[in-house]
């Protein structure tokens, strides 16, 4: 499988990364080179192999269903680039 410029634009859009025409042109051979190399995994017979889910056997712990902190609005917003009225500010999203 190889990617063309339309595919690169689609991936960039899925990844939410703006790209210029020049960047797309540069990425096509670069990604094809890397993807061509990882294709060799197709050689491995994995018919009866389960995909790895946990690298070291470990049971997932669940914490108690209680509020562990709260009332930390200012700390949560402290690094926001454009907080407003105690909320994260974003550009208008309604028509």
């Amino acid at each position, binding site marked *: *499988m190889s*990617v063309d410029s339309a*595919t*690169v634009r689609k*991936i*960039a*859009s*899925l*990844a*939410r*990364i*703006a*790209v210029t025409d020049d960047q797309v042109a540069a*990425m096509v051979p*670069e*990604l094809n*080179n*890397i*993807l061509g*190399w*990882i294709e*060799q*995994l*197709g*050689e*491995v017979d*994995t018919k009866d*192999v*389960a*995909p*790895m*889910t*946990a*690298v*070291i056997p*470990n049971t*997932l*712990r669940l*914490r108690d269903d209680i509020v562990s902190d709260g009332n930390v609005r200012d*700390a949560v917003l*402290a*690094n*926001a*680039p*454009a907080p407003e009225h105690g909320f*994260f500010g*974003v*550009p*208008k*999203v309604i028509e």
Partner: protein
Amino acid sequence: MSEVTDLGIAAIRDGVRDGAFSAREVATAFIDKVAAAKALNAFLVETPDHALAAADAADAARTSGDLKPMSGVPIGMKDLFCTKGVATTAASDILGGFTPPYESTVSGKLWDAGAGMLGKLNMDQFAMGSSNETSAFGNVISPWRRSDGGNASLAPGGSSGGSSAAISARLCPGATGTDTGGSIRQPAAFTGISGIKPTYGRCSRWGVVAFASSLDQAGAMARDVRDCAIMLEAMAGFDAKDSTSLDLPVPDWEGGLNASLKGKRIGIPKEYRVDNMPAEIDALWERGIAWVKDAGAEVVEVSLPHTKYALPAYYIIAPAEASSNLARYDGVRYGLRDLPEGAGLQDMYAATRAAGFGPEVKRRIMIGTYVLSAGFYDAYFTQASKVRTLIARDFDEAWKSCDLLLTPTAPSAAFALGEKSADPLAMYLNDVFTVPSSLAGLPAMSVPGGLDAQGLPLGLQVIGKALDEQGVLNACLAIEQRAGFNARPEAWW
């Protein structure tokens, strides 16, 4: 007294305890060294006040008889660890202006153990890179130079290259590193220091900027094996805030150090003899084999048949997890926001991420997005996860005939900056010996083995069974004692 900066963690700890010098003297000496070494670009932020406060606490603790395991030891902190009130960027513009209101578990444990912080260390952006050329704040320059008189700037390795450069230049006695596919071990090898990545889950990932969650693991970097044991002990331990943290006691690794390998079987994986391996790497490996035999070990050949598929599997799994982890950088909650005139929310996300991520980070997010996208998920991601199972199984098979594995750490000595940066694939291949054990979550360590013909350090790697950090440390100690590595870079900075 500039000599105090020649001491390692154990010597500083003991000297402070015995009153040979004060912790404040130690901190001041290292702070001066850091300030005078700007040419290396190893530190992104200097925090002399943090180091001095910890030193004063150590001096007070000595008086009151309340010394902690790392009292009086100032360290460097890789900028991947969130440090309360101190800027943390993961060497990326997208985290510009971010000051964590919390402390990562690992850094918090180190402060609780009495350590102080000299500053935040430069690294490959989001830990993606093997040479420290992807930092948004410029390359870290290795303190080492080739003996050819050319003075080419060399890579300190990556991604923990600020850590490795700072330790080998004697700017700090130890530093934290993180290892996703070799990011502690390869820079340690390139700069003639020691570095250990413990079993996945030994160190909490809470508060560590995430790259690939199923692989990321913090570890210790220092000048020798004992110092790594001391520091790792202070960093490791169960953390309820990380669901992958192992709920196990931390062994007394320093107390358990023992360089005798009598009764140990050490495996030499035949598939690690890769094509075109430089003769010097092969010779180093042979010396390593002789050293572990001399320490009493029996050496056996083992097979890890899926070795050649580890790198391609890694370069699917790690970018896939990264594309998901890095989705959080969107210009809303922290860091950079790029809001072009009249842009909507989606355009803001795209513009922010285009402006904030470096080329290698974008490349990996793109690959990760592609391999996870509809229609390709099974062919790439599921297949890579199955191959990962086979790689882990290879190690399980090997453990039936040996206790530890011995390999070179990297396929070459440090390369010059710029030498591989135009070809991402060539750069990825540098991790060929470190990636398989990362995929299997196993503890692994690099220890200096000697110098190449150009006078540059070469490292040997020991890989152990899950949770056998002690075995890994002991084998590395045996090698360290026999290698007698005492070369250091000549100060030019």
